[in-house]
């Protein structure tokens, strides 16, 4: 894969070119392109990719560029579930077209807002009848086990996926899910899988594959497996319950008039210049992300509270929104560069910085709960070089009081409105500010040159 200013290119080997030919000649390809389930792709000239030697590649494809790349350790449960369902749907439809997908990783799924798009064209290949699904183990480690952790154990999967790009190994899944053996899919996909994997660790894979073909492993069996997995994934539900945040939108500390004036302020600030990308930091129920989306191509709405983001995703998905991407992420612990040489999966900032930042009712959580000095937080915001809308609740604010109540007297002495304003002015030109309540003030600002 190559990213150039002209877009995303994929170099194919001659075997890859054969598989690509099989794919484009199938009716499935046209359908998938029309439905938008698969990234828009066309053949390109090898010369389109500089530094690529002709002998290294038999052909080159050009892909549509996704607006913003995201990773499964940033997705809420329902997003990972929908990505898993897309993967299985593609597997089933490919099978009917005489094709297969050779792997099964959520990193092959990206999002147009809340619509999943499969991006790995190189995953399609000609079906080899009688062969089991090569992607099954990966489907388990990166889709199924994370979903089961959340659905069966209420155990967030993000740390496990961020901790290992290979996901959760069968034996590790067994350690967590052994007590859930009567839940759907656990005995076969987890317990037996882990057992067979250790039992046959040294076996000759080619020999087993031949034996399985002779034993009658057929395309029908493959189809039955996909159907069964699809039913299993569909049945997985996360009863997220009510966290401190899921009902925040209804029970927050302002009245309706304050919320309306806040929305008006955000709307006017966002409308000053149409943004390609907005970050809504600590988006909560997404109310202001929706307002910002009126004047933006895409709003990345992120929040550390998984249940809140899951609820937001489901609402936006049901509305068919393509202009808001909801992710689970803490601003005090954002996604880092990971994988091979730290280049496989990029930190959030390396994937595209915003032109507008919304920091509404977040600075007290970062600076008091997260113990990030106010100036340090503003330094980071300034480094993003974007227009800023920020809300500052002063020390008398009931929520600030609550956050401070668990701390020693005089904690976070830099958390003062006057100090905040001075630090803000040192980094940004304040365009306007209005009080939204007795204890909260909104500022719209531009970075100082």
């Amino acid at each position, binding site marked *: *894969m*190559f*990213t*150039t*200013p002209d877009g*995303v290119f*994929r170099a194919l080997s001659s075997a890859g070119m054969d598989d690509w030919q099989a794919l484009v000649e199938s009716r499935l390809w046209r359908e998938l392109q029309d439905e938008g389930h698969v990234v828009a792709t066309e053949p390109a000239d090898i010369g389109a990719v*500089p*530094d*690529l030697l002709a002998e290294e590649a038999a052909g080159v494809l050009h892909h549509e560029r996704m607006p913003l*790349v995201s990773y499964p350790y940033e997705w809420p449960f329902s997003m990972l579930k929908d990505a898993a369902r897309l993967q299985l749907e593609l597997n089933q439809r490919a099978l009917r077209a005489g094709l297969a997908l*050779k*792997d099964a*990783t959520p*990193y092959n799924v990206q999002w147009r807002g809340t619509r999943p798009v499969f*991006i*790995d064209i190189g*995953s399609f290949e000609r079906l080899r009848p009688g062969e*089991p*699904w*090569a*992607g*099954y*183990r990966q489907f*388990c480690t990166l889709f199924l086990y994370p979903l089961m952790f959340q659905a069966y154990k209420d155990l967030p999967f993000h740390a496990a996926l961020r901790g290992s790009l290979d996901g959760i190994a*069968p034996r590790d899944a067994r350690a967590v899910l052994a007590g859930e053996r009567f839940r759907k899919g656990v005995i*076969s*996909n987890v317990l*037996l*899988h882990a057992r*067979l*994997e*250790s*039992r*046959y*660790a040294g*076996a000759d*894979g080619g020999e*087993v*594959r031949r*034996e*399985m073909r002779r*034993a*009658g*492993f*057929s395309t*029908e*069996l*493959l189809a*039955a*497996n996909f*159907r*069964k*997995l699809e039913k299993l994934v569909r049945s997985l539900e996360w009863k997220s319950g009510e966290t401190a945040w899921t009902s925040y939108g209804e029970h927050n500390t302002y009245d309706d008039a304050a919320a309306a004036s806040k929305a008006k302020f955000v709307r006017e600030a966002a409308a000053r210049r149409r943004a390609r990308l907005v970050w809504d930091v600590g988006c909560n129920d997404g109310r202001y992300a929706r307002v910002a989306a009126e004047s933006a191509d895409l709003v990345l709405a992120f929040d550390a509270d998984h249940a809140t983001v899951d609820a937001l995703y489901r609402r936006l998905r049901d509305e068919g929104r393509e202009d808001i991407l909801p992710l689970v992420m803490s601003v005090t612990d954002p996604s880092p560069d990971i*994988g091979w040489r730290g*280049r496989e*999966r*990029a930190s959030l900032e*390396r*994937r595209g910085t915003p032109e507008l930042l919304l920091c509404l009712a977040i600075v007290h959580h970062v600076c008091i709960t997260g113990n990030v000095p106010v100036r340090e937080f503003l330094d980071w915001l300034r480094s993003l070089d974007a227009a800023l809308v920020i809300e500052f609740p002063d020390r008398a604010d009931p929520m600030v009081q609550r956050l401070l109540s668990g701390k020693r007297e005089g904690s976070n002495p830099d958390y003062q409105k006057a100090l905040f304003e001075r630090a803000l002015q040192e980094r940004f030109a304040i365009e306007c500010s209005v009080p939204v309540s007795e204890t909260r003030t909104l500022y719209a600002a531009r970075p100082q040159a």
Partner: protein
Amino acid sequence: MSGTQLSILGDAVLAYLDPGTGSMLVQLLVGGVAAVGVAAKLYWHRILRLFRIRKTEPEPDRER
């Protein structure tokens, strides 16, 4: 940005999978009744043989 760079999509171009033997075998069982039925109808005895053959192989690591 000039020239080319390793894509941040980090596509596993060279990393398509060896599914692993255990992961292949378990696929004879994950399909539930329908899948097992298909397998059973065809060559169930061969599957049994397959499992038996593997079991009779010496496992020096575990005997120690």
